[in-house]
């Protein structure tokens, strides 16, 4: 019973892995933006990144 359940579970895990690799899924935080104007190509400063307000770490020990 447990063995059968584990076999089904394991197949699902490996199938999920296959899908993730084939579709190129990633754990990274990426924000998808639609309809970026073509003008950005000529005027890069006109684009405002959603990450521009990020508070930067100024690390070191």
């Amino acid at each position, binding site marked *: 019973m*447990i063995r059968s359940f*584990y076999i089904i579970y394991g197949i699902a895990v490996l199938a999920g892995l296959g899908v993730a690799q084939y579709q190129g899924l990633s754990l990274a935080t990426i924000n998808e933006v*639609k309809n970026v104007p073509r003008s950005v190509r000529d005027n890069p400063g006109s684009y405002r990144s959603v990450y521009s307000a990020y508070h930067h770490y100024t690390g070191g020990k």
Partner: protein
Amino acid sequence: MSAGPMPPNRPQVKALNCPHCGAALTLRSFGNAVTVVCESCHSILDAKDPNLQVLQRFQAATDPEKPLIPLGTRGKIRGTEYEVIGFERRTIHVDGVPYSWHEYVLFNPYKGFRYLTEYNGHWNDASVLKALPEILPYASPPKVKYLGETYRHFQTAKAGTSFVLGEFPWQVRVGESAEVTDYVSPPRVISSEQTGNEVAWSMGEYMSGKDVWKAFSLPGDPPEATGVYENQPSPLSADTKNIWVVFAAFLVLLVMMMIGFDMSSNKAEVFTGYYKYDSNQRGEASFVTDEFEIRGHTSNVEVDTSTDLNNRWIYLNYALINGETGQAFDFGREVSYYHGYDSDGSWSEGSANDSVAVPKVPPGRYYLRVEPEGDPGYGVTYYTISIKRDVPQNSWYGIALGALLLPAILLTWRTLSFEHLRWAESDHPPIRIGDSE
């Protein structure tokens, strides 16, 4: 036709009555019993003596106890019908605490005697060993070997008989004691009972209360088993072995998938650019790269950043923009690398390089918008941006491996917990962290 003369020595049926209280006695073992206990006055009688001499009376010393399987009940054990003819309670003391179990004497005229033992709802079907087990010298803990199977020492204790009823194939006495040693290899247990110089060996096999109730067609339900018994088979041990075998098969599959994806994935470098960022320079820092083609099916794009950072950081706002559709993947990466030396020795944190996978990027013509940021005063940072298409992500292999391992580890942990409970009651309890002598 008249009857002939009666033979002078014709055998006569002798009424069996307790010589002490006169109650009728039932002998079920056809003269095989050595002692019989009167159910009325609890006198232990010599069954081999025609006058049933009273050997001992114990009624005043102990409380009467009712067997769960009444004397005279018949049931099938391993295909043979046995009758319950005797019952005794035996007690050991561990740290002054009495622990009692019950033994039932079973009899079949052709097969002889066998025994059922019961402790806290755990049952064992026991019979006398036909050959002596081999005692393994120098084994720690002590072990015995019997029919190719090794049994590990569980417990040695002085067991006293505290209540008896019915017939016994030995000279039973209340108060008599023997040194009982158990060796286990679940679901079996080998026991030795030493009285003086005499040692008797027996083997028991674990039975559930339900099986006993079914074998003897007893009404109701058996008492629920509590705790883990010394030779109780772990309900999960077989599953645990199986699951690790299946895990090994999955691991092979996982490695094959790794090789397969590594060989079949594109991993083509679609763009590389070398850049310089001067944090002292004022003005717009953002720029865009040349357009590049991303081919193939919808898959990931890996953006690698390599810098010459040294005790500094740089933040890069990235946007991978499809020049045709206007679809953009916006993300920020902080790259920082610090190192030094202090009283603890040398230290470092971060890395001068970074890598990120942008998921599910459809094919098309793209460009990258880059907006670097850094602390004013840092000066110039040189960095390289490299973009690759369709790169297998190792993190998924790690997650899949963890997901496959988790059930196996949980099951193993439960099996080990079961064994921990078993051996906690033995002479060889598992050592726990924090225990002190």
